[in-house]
């Protein structure tokens, strides 16, 4: 119930402390005798443990209420030594030592003692601020990492979407390429047909076959001579030329005979649509023209 105080500055202080110790010990003996007497009288009833506990706690509480803090001794040196030891070696946690000071020398002691506590207080405050700063820095780092992660996630999502889209396209192209091709071919055929139609219309309108009924008798003989032979139209000539070129590219020459009206062949030759064969002057072929 009492602490043994190990260091003291003067022998007087020691003597005072020893006296206090003796007093306490006598008190202890007295109480112990009372307890022993009470124990031998009472019978232990183990079923009421909780009640026992309750009684003990309430009585302890009453004692604490009644108790007043008082100085251990009146000598300031002794108190100083006790306080120092209390703060430095015996207690690891901060504890309250309640000292009621009535004298100004006691004030000096408590001031010295309280300065130590204040130093402890300031150190703890520094530790607190340091750890707060660390915590803030960590929070900032956390936020930055989170935004980075969000960005990367977005990028990942976008790339995944693109991958699925491309996969879908690859899958459907096998089926639809054929359809695309068919469509294109049909379009081209239609275009080709329309072009041919326009060409034949134009040729029929602007390049008709010469009129076998001549205007004057002077050319009657030539016209009659011509009418005997069956002339072919310009479109026929062009058709023959293109077919020969496309079907037999190694031999694109068409022989001009009397069915070809000479002014038309001359026109084709002069405009560069057809050229004469270098070996045979009666053969012409289609030329690439622009």
């Amino acid at each position: 119930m009492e602490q043994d105080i190990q260091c003291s500055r003067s022998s007087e202080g020691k003597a005072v402390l020893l006296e206090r110790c003796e007093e306490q010990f006598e008190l202890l003996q007295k109480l112990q005798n009372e307890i022993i007497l009470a124990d031998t009288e009472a019978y232990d009833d183990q079923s009421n443990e909780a009640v026992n506990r309750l009684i003990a706690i309430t009585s302890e509480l009453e004692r604490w209420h009644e108790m007043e803090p008082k100085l251990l001794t009146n000598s300031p040196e002794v108190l100083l030594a006790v306080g120092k030891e209390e703060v430095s070696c015996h207690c690891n946690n901060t504890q309250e030592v309640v000292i009621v000071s009535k004298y100004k020398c006691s004030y000096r002691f408590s001031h010295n003692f309280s300065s130590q506590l204040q130093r402890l207080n300031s150190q703890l405050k520094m530790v607190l601020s340091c750890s707060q700063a660390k915590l803030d820095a960590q929070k900032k780092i956390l936020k930055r990492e989170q935004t980075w992660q969000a960005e990367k996630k977005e990028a990942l999502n976008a790339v995944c979407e693109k991958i699925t889209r491309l996969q879908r396209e690859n899958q459907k192209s096998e089926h639809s390429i054929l359809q695309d091709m068919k469509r294109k071919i049909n379009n081209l055929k239609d275009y080709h047909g329309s072009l041919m139609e326009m060409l034949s219309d134009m040729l029929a309108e602007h390049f008709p076959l010469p009129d076998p009924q001549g205007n004057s008798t002077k050319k009657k003989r030539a016209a009659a001579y011509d009418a005997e032979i069956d002339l072919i139209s310009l479109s026929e000539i062009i058709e023959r030329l293109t077919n020969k070129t496309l079907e037999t590219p190694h031999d694109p020459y068409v022989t001009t005979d009397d069915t070809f009206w000479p002014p038309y062949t001359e026109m084709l030759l002069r405009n560069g649509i057809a050229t004469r064969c270098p070996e045979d002057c009666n053969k012409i072929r289609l030329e690439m023209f622009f």
Partner: protein
Amino acid sequence: MALLTPYSKVPELNTATVLLVENEEELQSKLANALVQYEKDFNVNVRLARKLPLPVENKETRPRIDLIVFLVNLLSERSLQSVESSLAHLHSDCFLGKVCFLVTDARCGSHTQERLVSVRKLAAAHQCPVLCAEHRTVDGVNAAAVRLLNILKVSAGMSPIATTALYLSSLTRCSVTSDLEED
């Protein structure tokens, strides 16, 4: 029946006595050595027993016991049973802060979990603290010794004025939560 009573003797100067009760007697000696080694400020008197009641012939020479520690090895069923039977030999005043339970091997399997639950229920019924210790390494034994010394200091009255054994046991007593009770 001779009950072990807490306050029937005068305490000795600058000494604290702890009684380690263990059925298997394997951790007792190691813990005793560690306890004596660690405490420099006051004398630590360690007494070992297998179970209560303590033999009658030593009753006069035995000092006042400040703390009774029940060491329970969760791997054996008999350990827990012997502790339960020993508890009957304690005066009920002992439970006001002078009894502590120390369990070992709490992580080693499913049976240990059940026994741990029953130890905790027992401790909660008597409102005593439960410590878990690891007894196979030196560090574990030392750590357990330090913790026991803290409790011993309080129950022997070596700590400053404001802390009493009853108060400490109210703070550190084992509590059984409702989900444990439902098991």
